[in-house]
């Protein structure tokens, strides 16, 4: 496989952003191009991820493309997925040997609507979506299942909430009323508007653009069944398989940036992947505190790369998820070494 690295990233998250998507993305895209000194005409491929259902507009990404300034025309693609999958499409393009540099970006602006309800439209439109089950409620069903099966405990959820910083201590956690039984507010995400842009480069070019490139040593993604009655909700086979395929277990990791917007998902995924619970090795900006649909996954990859640039870690895992109850999962292993 051709060696590809993340050489620059810029991101922004706020609970409610007044800027529109183009205004949000222009400074971020400009920042990564300036940091690497690359003009858009020198970038081989551009790929983005976003959702029309957040923008409330068909072809919304066409408008946002203005933030790139595609004049003259560019080689470009878009996925209706979290930007982590745009990064995957780009990584594949690198493997074809036809590009040496790429721009990847994604964004989400859920604040104009009620994301809790919007997410209901992602469910099976014939049997489930007409009931309008909201995101917290279906996650609560999964949490209840896990509790009753003895796979997790409320103590673990409370510990996770403290670790993520949604409460200061466990007493505070247990003082909260349940929001969607058994979940409390501290178990559930605060949605945020935000975006992320990054530059990728192939071996030979990456070293020119970045002092310590964050090399993608493995990347893979898998999807599970959508249907709650078909899936075993106490396990995430797609995450385990993607982690194995991405080479997670080939060596120790120093840091894991996982895209878990609920405590119950954090606890479950860590068990599934055998990830350490040591707080020093946990995400600093836990997605529970700022979940930006369509960008959170790519943001995790950006954070995992930053840890390598800052020499806080040498081998990191970034994870992205999509779909209800972590149905689809992507794993990206980064390293300061080419391996």
């Amino acid at each position: 496989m051709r060696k590809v690295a993340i050489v620059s990233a810029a991101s922004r998250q706020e609970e409610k952003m007044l800027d529109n998507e183009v205004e949000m993305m222009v400074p971020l895209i400009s920042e990564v191009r300036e940091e690497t000194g690359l003009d858009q005409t020198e970038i081989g491929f551009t790929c983005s991820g976003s959702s029309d259902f957040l923008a409330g507009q068909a072809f919304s990404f066409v408008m946002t493309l203005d933030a790139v300034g595609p004049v003259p025309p560019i080689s470009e693609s878009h996925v209706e997925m979290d930007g982590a999958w745009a990064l995957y499409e780009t990584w594949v393009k690198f493997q074809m040997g036809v590009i040496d540099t790429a721009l990847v970006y994604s964004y989400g602006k859920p604040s104009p609507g009620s994301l809790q309800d919007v997410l209901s439209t992602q469910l099976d439109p014939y049997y489930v979506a007409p009931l309008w089950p909201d995101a917290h409620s279906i996650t609560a069903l999964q949490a209840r299942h896990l509790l009753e099966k003895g796979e997790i405990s409320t103590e673990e959820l409370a510990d996770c909430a403290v670790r993520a910083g949604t409460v200061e201590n466990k007493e505070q956690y247990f003082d909260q009323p349940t929001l969607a039984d058994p979940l409390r507010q501290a178990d559930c995400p605060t949605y945020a508007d935000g975006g992320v842009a990054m530059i990728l480069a192939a071996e030979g070019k990456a070293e020119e653009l970045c002092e310590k490139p964050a090399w993608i040593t493995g990347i893979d993604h898998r999807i599970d069944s959508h249907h709650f009655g078909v899936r075993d909700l106490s396990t995430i086979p797609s995450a385990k398989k993607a982690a194995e395929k991405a080479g997670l277990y080939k060596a120790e990791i120093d840091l894991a940036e996982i895209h878990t917007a609920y405590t119950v998902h954090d606890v479950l995924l860590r068990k599934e992947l055998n990830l350490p619970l040591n707080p020093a090795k946990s995400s600093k900006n836990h997605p529970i505190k700022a979940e930006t649909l369509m960008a959170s996954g790519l943001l995790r990859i950006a954070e995992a790369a930053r840890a390598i640039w800052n020499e806080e870690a040498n081998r990191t895992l970034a994870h992205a998820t999509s779909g209800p109850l972590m149905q689809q999962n992507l794993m990206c292993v980064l390293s300061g070494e080419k391996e």
Partner: protein
Amino acid sequence: MAAGGELAAVVGVGMTKFSATRGDVSMPGLVREAAERALKDAEMEWEDIDAVVMGKAPDFFEGVMMPEIFLGEALGAVGKPMLRVHTAGSVGGSTALVAASLVHSGVHERVLTVAWEKQSESNAMWALSLKQPFQVSINAGAGGYFSPIIRQYMEETQAPELIGCMVAFKDRQHALLNPYAHLHQPDLTFDQVVESPMLWEPIRYSETCPSSDGAAAMVIVNETEAEKSMNPAWIHAGAMRSEANNFPGRDEVNPQASRECAADLWNQAGITNPREEIDVAEIYVPFSWYEPMWLESLGFCERGDGWKLVESGATHLNGGDLPINCSGGVLSSNPIGASGMIRFAEAALQVRGMAGEHQVDGARKAMGHAYGGGAQYFAMWVVGKDKPTS
């Protein structure tokens, strides 16, 4: 010359019957119908597939957010990688190219790609006209958007008024040879096309595409797998380009992104004279006049000569030397998200000699083309009966 990376070929093609309402199937049923046909054509089973790449146009067309999430199971994707592409109207073409890239890159050996739209689930005109703060809503639909651009083409080239009607009549005649086509109008006459109501001057009702339900699928494999097939369609080139919707000096009739995408494509395929070297092309023509416009932009003729090709009958399956849209084209079937992939898949069928009644005799090299947005997104490929030479 080739597309880059390892060789890849199409060994399976499947399409559904296209119609205004496929009320007999659900969304999973629709995509599965096309996918099963593609697998059967490829002589493969679901477990032979390594990854699935899905494409479709805006989610508002069905009212399901990121529908690939619930459709994965119907496409045998559980436990596999699944991608969802969305690049406006060009999406069917882009999706095929992303699927091909998974093989060109050496990441996978056998990839299933599916593009679809079930427009009857929602209302496309509503979906395209959702009001946005601080934006002028033209509520004109695609026809209203493209008609001034067509008028500009007519002014620039002094094309006769009825060229568009000739294209529409030709494509509806072609559609009669394609059992999957949505519009089958055996009694349609040229005069009826001319006399049909003017919708967006100069576009008449009969010069527009229908709204369709439908899906198209392909199985794309690496060289080793392709050599097991009796008639693979080898991918010789693939290119995508995008440009901004609006900027000073933008040539909307012949966009720079279109010209540069075509130039890249011909270069990859080692083609210097497309008119001579391409035997048949499936070009994205949702409004009749886009046939002569794209013929010029793609380099099949000089600028200003596209309408002359149409007038001469060169683009007709019956007797033309550059048959265009032998399947009936977008003008006869338009499940939007799938329309680009249908073009790509029809090109593959032609070089595999499997296009049935609308087969161009001896076709060895074919082009598939799709565009989207305000004529600003482009996806194209060239497929051939022969393996590309490097």
